[in-house]
């Protein structure tokens, strides 16, 4: 036992001290945050500027193409050809929007002629404007006025409520459950791959450096394998713990910034409101209604955050996080022991990676139907349960299912580790031999 502790200690310390570990620990949350922030930031800031000449043969849109901050419309009196020439000649204009006369009856063939490719936002803005206007024209033609349409618009938000076995009702939020479930699933998926491969590399390193025989003359191969697996698991846990701490700091920092920003906005609008006074009552009341709806949604979100059973989710996350890693890492160790270098691992990797990728793909199906028989079975099979069960848990899973799945996972872990251990202890002493599955089967039966 003491020797396993020594092995765990070495595996842990050598990895945690590595530069790459420290860099990844710092970079991880930053990259994660960047993954969410950068696209939003890009979308906000990279809106292209465009000056567009509108040639409107239908004479319907002249007054209706409204400028935005970045997109400006001009309505020249000359024809299409001169507009084209203008676009080509000067840098002031980027494109010609040509709307033909029969646009109302045949809403195709509207052209945007450019010398510099306009951004997707520009195109979408023009499309939306024209679409909306044509719709409005058509509605007006059939005698329906704007107010009726506005009045007919309704916004629905379902309050979903789960009826549990004792007959108690509890509100749930499907979207939030989806996010929590998917996020946990992704984390487990990543953990299995990142650290399972580290186990495999560690085994190959010991084999190629030929230290293996020295070590197994002091400890049993199984002790060495388990020590390595546990040591690397602790490295993973440390890294995730640090990520959580760092991310929380980053997020709370970011949140403070965002809140400040919203507070400013709010005070700005209230000043505007005060200045506008009683003018234009109707749009304001509309705005108020919308705000109330938003508030309701936010409240519901908070309600459901409070309703989510965090102790259960966190507890089972930890369990499946470790369980998923453990059941696969033993197999990764077996693969590492069977080869002489990393390039040879390919042929044995497929049976291991396949179920992991499969569960990841199935997670997207399960999330839409967390209580289906397929979801149930996938969350019981030890090879898929770590990811699938984690996806299901935020939706609420009966305790007996959870208990069964966990028991099966533990049994599965013992089983794979036993098998892997048998392959491992033969494999680590085999050199210079191309190993086939048949050979592995033979090793399994040695005593």
């Amino acid at each position: 036992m003491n020797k396993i502790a020594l092995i765990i200690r070495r595996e842990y310390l050598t990895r945690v001290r590595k530069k790459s570990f420290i860099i990844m620990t710092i970079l991880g949350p930053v990259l994660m945050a960047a993954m969410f922030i950068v696209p939003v930031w890009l979308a906000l800031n990279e809106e292209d500027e465009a000056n567009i000449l509108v040639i409107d043969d239908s004479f319907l849109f002249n007054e209706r193409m409204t400028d935005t901050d970045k997109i400006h419309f001009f309505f020249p009196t000359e024809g299409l050809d001169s507009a084209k020439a203008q676009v080509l000649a000067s840098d002031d204009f980027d494109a010609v929007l040509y709307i033909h006369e029969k646009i109302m009856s045949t809403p195709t063939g509207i052209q945007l002629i450019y010398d510099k490719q306009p951004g997707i936002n520009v195109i979408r803005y023009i499309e939306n404007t024209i679409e909306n206007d044509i719709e409005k024209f058509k509605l007006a033609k059939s005698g329906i006025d704007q107010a009726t349409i506005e009045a007919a618009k309704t916004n629905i938000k379902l309050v979903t409520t789960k009826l549990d076995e004792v007959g108690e009702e509890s509100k749930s939020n499907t979207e939030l459950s989806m996010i929590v479930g998917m996020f946990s699933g992704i984390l487990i998926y990543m953990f299995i791959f990142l650290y399972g491969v580290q186990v495999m590399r560690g085994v190959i390193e010991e084999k190629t450096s030929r230290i293996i025989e020295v070590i197994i003359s002091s400890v049993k191969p199984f002790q060495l394998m388990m020590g390595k697996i546990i040591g690397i698991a602790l490295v993973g846990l440390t890294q995730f713990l640090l990520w959580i701490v760092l991310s929380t700091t980053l997020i709370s920092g970011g949140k403070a910034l965002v809140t400040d920003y919203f507070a400013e906005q709010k005070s700005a609008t209230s000043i505007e409101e005060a200045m506008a006074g009683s003018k234009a009552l109707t749009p304001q009341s509309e705005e108020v209604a919308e705000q109330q709806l938003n508030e309701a949604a936010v409240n519901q979100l908070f309600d459901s955050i409070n309703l989510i059973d965090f102790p259960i989710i966190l507890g089972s996350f930890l369990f499946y996080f470790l369980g998923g890693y453990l059941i696969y890492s033993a197999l990764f160790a077996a693969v590492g022991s069977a080869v002489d270098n990393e390039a040879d691992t390919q042929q044995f990797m497929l049976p291991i990676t396949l179920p992991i990728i499969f569960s990841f793909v199935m997670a997207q199906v399960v999330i839409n139907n967390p209580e289906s028989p397929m979801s149930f079975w996938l969350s019981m099979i030890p090879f898929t349960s770590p990811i699938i069960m984690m996806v299901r848990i935020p939706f609420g899973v009966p305790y007996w299912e959870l208990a069964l799945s966990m028991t099966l996972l533990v049994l599965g872990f013992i089983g794979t580790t036993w098998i892997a251990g048998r392959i491992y202890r033969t494999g680590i002493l085999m050199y210079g031999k191309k190993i086939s599955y048949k050979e592995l089967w033979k090793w399994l039966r040695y005593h």
Partner: protein
Amino acid sequence: MSEPIFRAENVSKAYAGHIAIENISVAVPEGSIFGLLGPNGAGKTTFIRIINQITGPDTGSLWFGNERLEQKHLEHIGYLPEERGLYKKMKVGEQALYLCQLKGLSKRDALTRLKYWFEKFEIQGWWNKKVEELSKGMAQKVQFIVTVLHEPKLLILDEPFSGFDPINTNLIKSEILELKKKGTTIIFSTHNMGSVEELCDHIALINNSRVILEGEVSEVRNRFRTQTYNVDFKGSMMEFSASLGTYGELLEHGPEADHMDATVRLVNGATTNQLLGNIMRTVEVRGFHEVIPSMNDIFIEAVQRYNKEIAAV
């Protein structure tokens, strides 16, 4: 002969259809250097791995002193495998400490002893170097230290001199002899027969999965004597040859700087005195001694003889 510290009785091991060792019985006397010899693929490595409990035997029993060999005895065994290495990215000192602790030494003991050995080998400066910065010979030195540091009662050295230059080979040789003086029993596996003659008290020759020759080195060499003598004389080789008569047979001969040299085997049950009497009448004998076969000759002779017998059957 002292009590054996290690005994194997009828130990066999087979791998899926291939017999690695068959009915091996050896006894290693305490305090001796025991040569484990044999051609490549004879089963030596398998046998050594069984002693280290890396693999288990199919049948037969193994004894450490008076006890059945168990996992706990590993702390009294030191093993330097033929294929050896260290973690490349780990620092020398840290790694040596780790390997010694795995053998059951406390951290404090390991540190004191490592300090002693590092000073003895004059390698204190390597403590904080990574193994990948060392040459092969340097790494071997570290490995040797790690193998003997926990003061094992039984030390198993598989080709310990490979990778060493002659100076370091001598250093290791004298360390081995010193360990023997302190009472360590050493199982020594090598293909270098010169060092077997130099170091070993006992040998066991394994060929084709079986022990085909075993015993004290001097006794084994005596067993392989062939009544062959080396004669150093002054005079004519022709006359010498004629004088052998029915007593001896000339095997090899040649002129040396200022004298003649011949190897003669006694035949027809003749004695050395009969032969010498004849020779002395014709040439001037300057030297006469028996040619005792080298371990190298014995190795080759024994293996070939065994293989011939197998082929005949």
